[in-house]
């Protein structure tokens, strides 16, 4: 088990490194005239050249990448080209909203999808059909369309919720709840629909196992079979489904934050992309991938623990 | 019983080792120096329990398992490490019938395509091939219209007949039969065994007949080799080995297979318990 964890950690660091190299090269090789973009059309050639030198853009790409890595290892991801705000600060200031949305959403998705998936698998009949139809419908609608519909209906027309996030530093809990309700609903609909269908099939697969019939023949109650044996065996599949949903949510917040004008990491990413603020883009990519790697590691450990063949080692 | 002078298949000191998983893992040696020979028109029964290596031996002969020591000679030629090209030529004379008739036929192909595939490799196509397929189906007592159907339309016994027809397509000299009847019902098993005997009478093919069932092996073989833990522990005349064996393991196998009569079975059980007590075999 310990060896598995160590192997996964090493592999995670390797992934982070590879992603960093690729992203850095991709971003900076095709960066173009950055000084001109920052200073605008009116700036003189000299000023632009000076800006480029200041940003170190006249140095070879590989050298710059080396510099970036050596400061990144010390926790310094550079500064925004446009606001001069350190990248780490810019991200950390916005990370809390994003993480709250993502973790609340994944929790709701986990509960809703598990309940719906199990009900569909066990009851079959109309419950099953309802879950299947809902999951097709839910996964057919793009997240941003759901977001736009929600905002139009509940914020613009009814005014039940704010159309623009009220989350600012020092905002009250009520503001947080009010501002995040619709975005989280938008995120959950997609994810839950997808996950429910997959959890359903994982459960059905386990229910058809021979040992379930044998447990029944031993006088074990249906409830115990379901919640002790089948749930346990279907859990690894379910966790994997949820970890993929989690990765999806990190992408989903980018769009949702823009729709609901939430100042989170996703919004930061969109703005930086539009402006061409490469240090920020680089930083956001690194943070997101790191979060994904940590979550995947946690899922691997949980799955390893659930599997006696792995746990023994 | 056929007496033969020249051997068709000769296996000497065969060692098969599967590479271990992972970079530094040690390989697993399945066969530890196995020798056997089969004459023309002869059936050698190879009997043993699961995991003893009997299937691996068959696969090594067919080139499906890695030969790491010893040699396999077929028709006087060393085929231990035959290339794919040589195998292609060899497939004319050396064929196979597998255990599971449900996975040994490609579910997406028609019976006609399945049977003409080996013909196509040897350059027989078109009308010639169709005529051959018809003859083959007839030989295994299947209707000609089976040609245009797919495997799932047939029962296990029928599929096994088709697999036998595929093996016969190129009129081979040796067919490796890997547990060909163990997935079949009793009466179907009897029909397939009858068919194999009939084919041998007609075209003089040799069989390497691999099975876990001593009764099946006794019925179909001229000679029998008994395998245990990757080695051959006893071989000789089929009736002798399967009714009055010398080796304690063969004896144990014989006494463990139940006979369909209560009183004789009770006697055999007593004999087995006495034998086990004397030999002190541990529980499996």
């Amino acid at each position, binding site marked *: 088990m310990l060896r598995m964890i160590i192997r996964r950690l090493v592999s995670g660091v390797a992934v982070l490194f590879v992603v960093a190299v690729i992203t850095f090269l991709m971003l900076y090789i095709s960066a173009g005239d950055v000084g001109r973009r920052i200073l605008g059309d009116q700036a003189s050639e000299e000023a632009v050249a000076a800006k480029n030198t200041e940003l170190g853009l006249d140095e070879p790409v590989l050298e710059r990448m080396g510099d970036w890595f050596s400061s990144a290892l010390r926790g310094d991801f550079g500064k925004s080209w446009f606001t001069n705000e350190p990248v780490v600060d810019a991200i950390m200031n916005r990370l809390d909203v994003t993480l709250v949305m993502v973790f609340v959403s994944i929790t709701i998705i986990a509960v809703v999808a598990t309940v719906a998936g199990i009900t569909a698998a066990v009851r079959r009949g109309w419950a099953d059909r309802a879950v299947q139809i809902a999951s097709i419908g839910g996964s057919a609608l793009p997240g941003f369309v759901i977001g736009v519909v929600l905002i139009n209906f509940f914020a613009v027309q009814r005014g039940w919720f704010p159309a623009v996030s009220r989350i600012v530093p020092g905002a009250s809990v009520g503001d947080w709840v009010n501002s995040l309700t619709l975005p989280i609903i938008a995120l959950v609909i997609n994810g839950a629909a997808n996950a429910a269908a997959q959890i359903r099939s994982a459960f059905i697969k386990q229910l058809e196992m021979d040992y379930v*019939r044998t447990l029944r023949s031993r*006088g074990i109650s249906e409830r115990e079979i379901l919640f002790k044996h089948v749930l346990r065996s279907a859990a690894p599949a379910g966790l994997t489904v949820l970890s993929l949903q989690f*990765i999806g949510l990190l992408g989903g917040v980018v769009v949702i934050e823009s729709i609901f004008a939430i100042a989170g990491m996703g919004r930061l990413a969109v703005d930086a992309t539009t402006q061409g603020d490469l240090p920020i883009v680089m930083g956001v990519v690194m943070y997101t991938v790191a979060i994904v790697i940590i979550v995947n590691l946690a899922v691997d450990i949980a799955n390893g623990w659930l599997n006696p063949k792995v746990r023994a080692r | 019983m056929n007496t033969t002078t020249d051997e068709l298949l000769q296996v000497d000191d065969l060692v098969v080792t599967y590479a271990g998983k992972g970079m530094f893992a040690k390989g697993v040696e399945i066969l530890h120096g196995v020798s056997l020979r089969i004459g023309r028109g002869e059936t050698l029964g190879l009997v043993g329990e699961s995991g003893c290596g009997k299937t691996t031996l068959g696969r090594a002969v067919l080139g499906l398992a890695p030969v790491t020591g010893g040699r396999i000679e077929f028709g006087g030629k060393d085929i231990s490490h035959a290339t794919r090209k040589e195998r292609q030529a060899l497939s004319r004379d050396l064929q196979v019938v597998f255990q599971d008739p449900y996975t040994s036929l490609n579910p997406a192909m028609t019976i006609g395509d399945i049977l003409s595939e080996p013909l196509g490799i040897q350059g027989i196509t078109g009308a010639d091939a169709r005529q051959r397929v018809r003859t083959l189906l007839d030989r295994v007592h299947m209707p000609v219209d089976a040609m245009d159907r797919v495997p799932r*339309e047939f029962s296990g016994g029928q599929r096994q007949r088709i697999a036998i027809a595929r093996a016969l397509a190129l009129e081979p000299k040796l067919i490796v039969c890997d547990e060909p009847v163990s997935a079949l019902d009793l009466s179907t098993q009897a029909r397939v065994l*009858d068919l194999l005997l009939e084919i041998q009478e007609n075209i003089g093919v040799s069989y390497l007949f691999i099975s876990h069932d001593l009764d099946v092996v006794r019925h179909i073989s001229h000679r029998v080799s008994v395998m245990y833990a990757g080695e051959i522990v006893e071989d000789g005349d089929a009736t002798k080995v399967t009714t009055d064996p010398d080796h304690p393991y063969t004896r144990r196998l014989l006494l463990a297979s139940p006979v369909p009569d209560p009183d004789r079975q009770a006697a055999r059980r007593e004999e087995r318990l006495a034998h086990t007590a004397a030999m002190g075999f541990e529980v499996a």
Partner: protein
Amino acid sequence: MSENVTTSEPASPEAGQSGTVVRPNLVRRLLKNPLGMAAAVIIGLAVLAAILAPLIATHDPNTASLTDVLIGPGENGHWLGTDSAGRDIYSRLVWGARVTLLSGALAASVGIVLGLPTGLIAGYFGGKFDGVASWLVNVLLSLPGIMVLLAVRAATGPSVWISMIVLGVLFAPGFYRLTRTAVQSVRNELYVDAARVAGLSDARIIARHILSVVRAPVIIQASMVAGLSISIQSALEFLGLGDPLVPTWGAMVGDGFRNIYRQALNLVWPMLALAVIIGGFVLLGNALRDALEDLEKVKAKHRTDTSARGSLGSAPPVEAGTEGILLKVSDLGVGYPQSDGTIKKVVDDVSFEVNRNEVVGIVGESGSGKSQTAFTILGLLPDNAVVTGGSIQFDGNYTVALGDDRVPQSRLVELRGKRISYIPQEPMSNLDPAFTIGSQLVRPMVKVLGISKDEAKQRAIDLLASVGIPDPPRTMAAYPHEVSGGMAQRVLIAGAFSCDPDLIIADEPTTALDVTVQAEVLDVLRELQDRVGLGVVMVTHNFGVVADICDRVVVMQDGRVVEQGAVRQILRDPREQYTKMLLDSTLEDKEPLTRLLVDAGEGSA
């Protein structure tokens, strides 16, 4: 041995099912499904609109007009009105279909081009390539797609095509995994081995035997991926990150959203278009999968019905004089409803009795209904099974009374595990891999016998010793994967005896075992049965097993009882032709190298 009880679907009788020919025709099945038809129509119409865009558009999609900004539908010749730049919405929708479909197709194609061949190679050859490719795939899968697209957009500027190629790369792992798994599952199929023996080259084996297995799942995945790509691509355009010169539905939603207070209707058209086309692809994928599963239904399993269906009311008293019989099955019929409304009977008019201290063998070939009969007694039939007639009484009470059309679970729940227990065929698959053997033995005893955990543990250790397990405490602590098949079967036998049942239903309990292990397991079974004097129903196809352990025999064929009687009478002097034929098929005591059956070779096997 071919009676596979895990597939409860009645096996087809020998020589049957050759009449109707059902060709696997995916397309026809797809179109027969209303959802599949709808999906095909939607996508077909979108393709048509995309091709005909220059003809059916009324305006140039990019011509702005400052005078006609955000006007409503029908005004000034703009059927659906105009956007914030005064561009015609209808024409933009039509042209947008082009970009939308092409982008979906591009992403899916890139995914297939990258994922399919690599998956084929990794799955077929394995080795180093597989290791490297699988690691890369894990890297790609841990990237959040939209973030990557943002980074690419930041690097290369707005381009639908570049972002779709990148998206295709991100989807390649899906195709890779799908292909690799499919290939691995067929790589070791015997028909691939047969092709190797025939001397087929690897390239031809892949082309002929392997590609066909991957094709359908890849098409399904492609459909899903196309929908997903469109969804992600339009999200990017919605955010304003797309090419402003290319009319797209995503950008139109964005424009409508920014002007939501002035012309909310502008939101509706592109959103509708997106929802319909993405829904079309998702539906197509689902319908394709259903069509495919339909083809495989032959081997589909059914779940066991354990819902509390069936009348709760007390059953009528049994016929006087039969109260003492342990198990009495009378005129039992069991069937499965077919799609044409008829019921296919798998057990028909079956009657037999089992007394205490008696082992009754049920013998027959696959499809004889012997296992179905056993599962009816246990009440563990698949949930679509119906009782078509007859009754079952256990120790003086009906478990299935005349007129019940299902096995009433309320009655069986009281008996199962307590008075009637079960020994399955496959030792390994019948133990839960996630729990120790000890806990799987102890729990039923605690529950059924109401004894303490420690007491149950002691009992389990004693039981394991009595079934011949050398070191019971160690086996108790082991997980199922740590013991051999023979050991696992002993554990299951110990489990069946653990709660002092009166009747044991053993379904081919030695079929999966080697003969030497079979003999030992039968010894254990006989000894325990002798000691506690219970009744046993022994389902088997092996006359040797019957001779070894049974007192009486019931011979079944095609769901009916052919004959029954004392074991010596049936084995030595069978009355029925079918029993004679079965006994003729046994090999013990036959002249070697001679034909077994006189009527052999009439194409009937």
